[in-house]
């Protein structure tokens, strides 16, 4: 391990012209790069002392080879000073704050002293002095006569981007530099600048550092032509104009021409530093593309900071669209053959595996599990081709390495962004498959929060034995069935898995031997138990029996299913909803399997199996359960269509009546309100009371209508089956489709905005009735009338805005939390410490419990222990 190094301090400052010259290895004087023979010209932009980029050559300055030599700066002596665009604004502020003649800060000695002391005090206790500095600038600009030399100050105007005007008179950069030079060190300090590291006149460039060639490598095109980096192009421009400026000045050219050239030099220096300055046309490549100069290299998403330093790209990774495959195990991932052939694992050749390795090499790169590269002891890497595969296979020796293609059973890390919790990256076993998508069992969608509407996922291949071991032991899907957030299963059956087992285990559906075995075909269960009954000498099994076969022996569990109606006195096994679930010794005696049994986040049966048996047993159960469920649902067939929302005529008229009654009731309330007969509820105004009562009335009406509808829709209705089993949707969804959509709301209130005194011009002003305030009487099936449709759109839009705002806010909240906590670590002694070893908690979570090993957050489940020992539920004793 490399030793940790501590950063002592970071110093920020400006480069002085002397420093620029001192660190420079050569002065650059010619704009040419290479001569006719293709050799770099000395004192040109590609001077060999600036570093090496061509392989095989050595650096003339440090002797390093390409890759070793970091490159060395050169410099250009500018014929005339130019403004550094990054400091243009600050220069203006300084010019305004200092005397045009003597250079002193325009404050009298007393004020200066006061600021100096205050700044000293603040620096001592390590506080920011920003607001004081601001004050200094603000106060000194106001002063019109220098308190030191009595000079009258002229008004200085800054014309973007780089011109300073003093009462109609232009200040050349050399004038500006002269003034800045005159500012005494003491005054510089008051301007927020440390004079030891940055003198203000250094903000005017006189010597320009030339970046090493390693920072602007030229590339050779296939045609043999060299293509230079954008920075080099810009430097060429600067040198050309610099030379012309010098020649013109020496030849005594008229002032006008000199000034034009000076301007041009300023333009090139500006765009060299930043090509996106407002007011400066960006310098362009011959093709018309704006050049990417220094500032553009650093800025933005793909810039040095966000793109290269905090963001990294990795090898041995793949990304493609995902699609479902319920036939895979939950800890498998289907990988396209093309990807498997490209991705490799390095094998060290040992006496134990040399035969296997030879076989991979013999197969070559084109026949699937083959090898792509062989690495000899001397470090030479040889590509395995059709031609050399036999030869290489024979030549293999101990200690060599081969890059073997990915094959079935390899461990890989699978990930979907955003990686919000640790289950966003899990280790899967490879299963090489045809076609071009990653395949995964839909049961692992919840932890990744994945669906198949075009989601893409990433895959990484661990390259060392340690990494693979860690992946198997810590990151495997099997080890992450339980969430560390609440100690329950986070992976579990979804949608069809739940519906499938629901219809299979509900009531007593009978299956003959053929059907029973057909259902269990993919579930690794071969032996049926004693049939539940015989008819015409043929044995029959119940759905509950079939499900019991995949439960582990020894599992005992009693709970109430989702369909439970919370009757006052529980009828236990006589429950008409079949919602009282009893599992004894791995046999489902009564009750229906639903979301509360196998669902992600809430699956009780799954939870018990994982905790009382093992994660491996839990994984096996989940594999079997999902397969059985898929077979069951295909056996029965399951579909949902528009006619599933049909409601019999008599129910419809009942519903209409309820709606009429509700509207009448609302009208009565409004009349009472207008007559002033309405009594205000405690803590409410009369207006609020009316609103609440109307909302309540309409809500009641919708619920009543929904109840009537659901009386006529039984469990044979697919939507009802999905809602009661918890697979998808709710009874409310169904009510909205079949009966009545209900009140639309904005911020929990009836819709009130729109025109003056009304929501839409279709209503009378001041109408407080149901329809005028966004009550949708129609159902989705009958269709909404135009005003209803409009209100629905309002309500729907609020929902969308809410989710958009919430996700961004909670995302940022979580990011800050994670940034604050990410270095904390639970040590072996149970303490939580930061990187300095400072103790944050003496015992993790105060009780030292790993929540993923806990029982829904509790460290022990006393009731469960009693039940396991006595065989009785303590609640029933």
């Amino acid at each position: 391990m490399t030793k940790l190094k501590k950063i002592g301090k970071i110093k920020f400052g400006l480069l002085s012209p002397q420093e620029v010259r001192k660190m420079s290895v050569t002065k650059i004087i010619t704009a040419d790069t290479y001569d006719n023979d293709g050799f770099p010209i000395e004192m040109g932009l590609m001077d060999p002392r600036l570093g090496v980029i061509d392989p095989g050559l050595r650096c003339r300055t440090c002797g390093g080879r390409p890759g070793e030599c970091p490159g060395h700066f050169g410099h250009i002596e500018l014929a005339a000073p130019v403004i550094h665009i990054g400091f243009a604004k600050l220069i203006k502020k300084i010019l305004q704050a200092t005397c045009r003649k003597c250079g002193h800060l325009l404050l009298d000695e007393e004020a200066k002293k006061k600021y100096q002391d205050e700044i000293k005090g603040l620096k001592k206790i390590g506080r920011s002095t920003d607001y004081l500095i601001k004050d200094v600038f603000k106060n000194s600009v106001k002063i019109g006569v220098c308190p030191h030399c009595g000079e009258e100050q002229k008004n200085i105007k800054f014309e973007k981007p780089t011109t300073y005007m003093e009462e109609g008179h232009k200040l050349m950069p050399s004038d500006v530099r002269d003034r800045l030079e005159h500012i005494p060190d003491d005054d510089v300090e008051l301007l927020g600048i440390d004079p030891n590291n940055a003198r203000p006149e250094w903000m005017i460039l006189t010597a320009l550092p030339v970046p090493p060639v390693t920072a602007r490598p030229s590339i050779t095109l296939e045609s043999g032509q060299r293509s230079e980096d954008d920075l080099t192009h810009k430097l060429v421009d600067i040198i050309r104009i610099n030379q012309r400026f010098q020649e013109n000045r020496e030849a005594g050219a008229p002032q006008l021409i000199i000034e034009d050239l000076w301007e041009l030099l300023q333009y090139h220096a500006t765009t060299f530093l930043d090509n996106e300055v407002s007011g400066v046309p960006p310098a362009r490549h011959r093709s018309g593309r704006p050049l990417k100069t220094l500032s553009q290299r650093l800025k933005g998403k793909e810039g040095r900071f966000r793109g290269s330093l905090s963001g990294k790209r990795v090898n041995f990774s793949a990304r493609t669209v995902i699609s479902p495959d319920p036939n895979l195990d939950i800890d498998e991932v289907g990988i396209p053959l093309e990807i498997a052939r490209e991705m490799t694992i390095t094998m060290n050749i040992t006496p134990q595996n040399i035969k296997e390795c030879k076989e991979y090499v013999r197969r070559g790169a084109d026949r699937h599990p083959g090898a792509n590269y062989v690495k000899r002891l001397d470090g030479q890497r040889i590509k395995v081709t059709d031609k050399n595969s036999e030869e290489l296979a024979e030549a293999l020796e101990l200690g060599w390495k081969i890059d073997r293609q990915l094959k079935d059973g390899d461990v890989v890390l699978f990930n979907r962004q955003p990686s919000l919790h640790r289950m966003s990256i899990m280790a899967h076993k490879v299963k090489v498959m045809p076609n071009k998508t990653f395949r995964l069992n839909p049961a692992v969608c919840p932890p990744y929060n994945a669906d198949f509407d075009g989601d893409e996922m990433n895959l990484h291949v661990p390259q060392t034995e340690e990494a693979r071991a860690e992946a198997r032991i810590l990151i495997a899907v099997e080890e992450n069935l339980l969430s560390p957030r609440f100690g329950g299963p986070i992976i579990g059956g979804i949608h069809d898995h739940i519906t499938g087992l629901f219809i299979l285990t509900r009531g007593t559906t009978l299956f003959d031997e053929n059907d029973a075995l057909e259902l269990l075909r993919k579930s690794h269960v071969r032996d049926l138990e004693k049939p539940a009954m015989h008819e015409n000498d043929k044995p029959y099994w119940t759905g509950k029996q079939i499900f019991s076969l995949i439960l582990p022996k020894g599992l005992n569990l009693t709970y109430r299913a989702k369909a439970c109606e919370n009757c006052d006195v529980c009828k236990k096994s006589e429950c008409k909803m079949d919602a009282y679930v009893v599992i004894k010794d791995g046999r489902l005696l009564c009750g229906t399997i639903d979301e509360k049994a196998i669902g992600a986040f809430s699956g009780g049966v799954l939870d018990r199996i994982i905790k009382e048996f093992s994660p491996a047993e839990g994984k096996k159960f989940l594999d079997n359960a999902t397969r059985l469920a898929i077979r069951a649902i295909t056996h029965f067939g399951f579909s949902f269509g528009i006619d599933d929302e049909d409601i019999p005529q008599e129910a419809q008229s009942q519903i209409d009546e309820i709606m009429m009654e509700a509207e009448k009731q609302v009208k009565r309330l409004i009349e009472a309100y207008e007559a002033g007969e309405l009594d205000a509820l405690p803590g409410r105004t009369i207006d609020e009371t009316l609103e609440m009562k109307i909302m309540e009335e309409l809500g009641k009406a919708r619920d009543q209508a929904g109840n009537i509808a659901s009386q006529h829709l039984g469990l044979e209705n697919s939507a009802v089956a999905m809602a009661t089993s918890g697979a998808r949707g709710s009874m409310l969804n169904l009510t909205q489709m079949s009966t009545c959509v209900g009140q639309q709301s904005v911020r929990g209130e009836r819709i009130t905005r729109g025109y003056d005194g009304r929501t839409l011009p279709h209503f009378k002003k001041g109408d407080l009735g149901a329809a005028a305030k966004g009550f949708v009487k129609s159902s989705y099936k009958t269709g909404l009338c135009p005003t209803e449709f409009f209100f629905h759109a309002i309500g729907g839009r609020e929902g969308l805005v809410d989710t958009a705002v919430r996700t961004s806010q909670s995302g940022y909240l979580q990011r800050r939390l994670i940034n604050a906590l990410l270095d904390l670590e639970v040590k072996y002694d149970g303490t939580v410490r930061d990187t300095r070893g400072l103790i944050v908690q003496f015992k993790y979570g105060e009780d030292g419990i790993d929540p993923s090993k806990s029982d829904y957050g509790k460290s022990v489940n006393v009731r469960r222990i009693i039940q396991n020992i006595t065989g009785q539920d303590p609640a029933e004793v």
Partner: protein
Amino acid sequence: MKKFNVRDHEIVPEHVIISKKDVEALLVKYSITKEQLPKIKSADPVCKEIDAKSGDVVKITRNSPTAGKSIAYRLVVG
């Protein structure tokens, strides 16, 4: 005005200054230096009340929703 003792408030946990010997034992138990302990200011109302001076270590016994009782130590500073 009647003086109010913060330690009497029900949500203020119990703070006790521990002896030199106990501090030694504590540092050995967690193999840490004093500086690695969490800090509490000597100006903290409870510290003033129990007269804890900079350099003392206080033992804080809290009621914990997860563990019933939990014990933490803090180094008095400043």
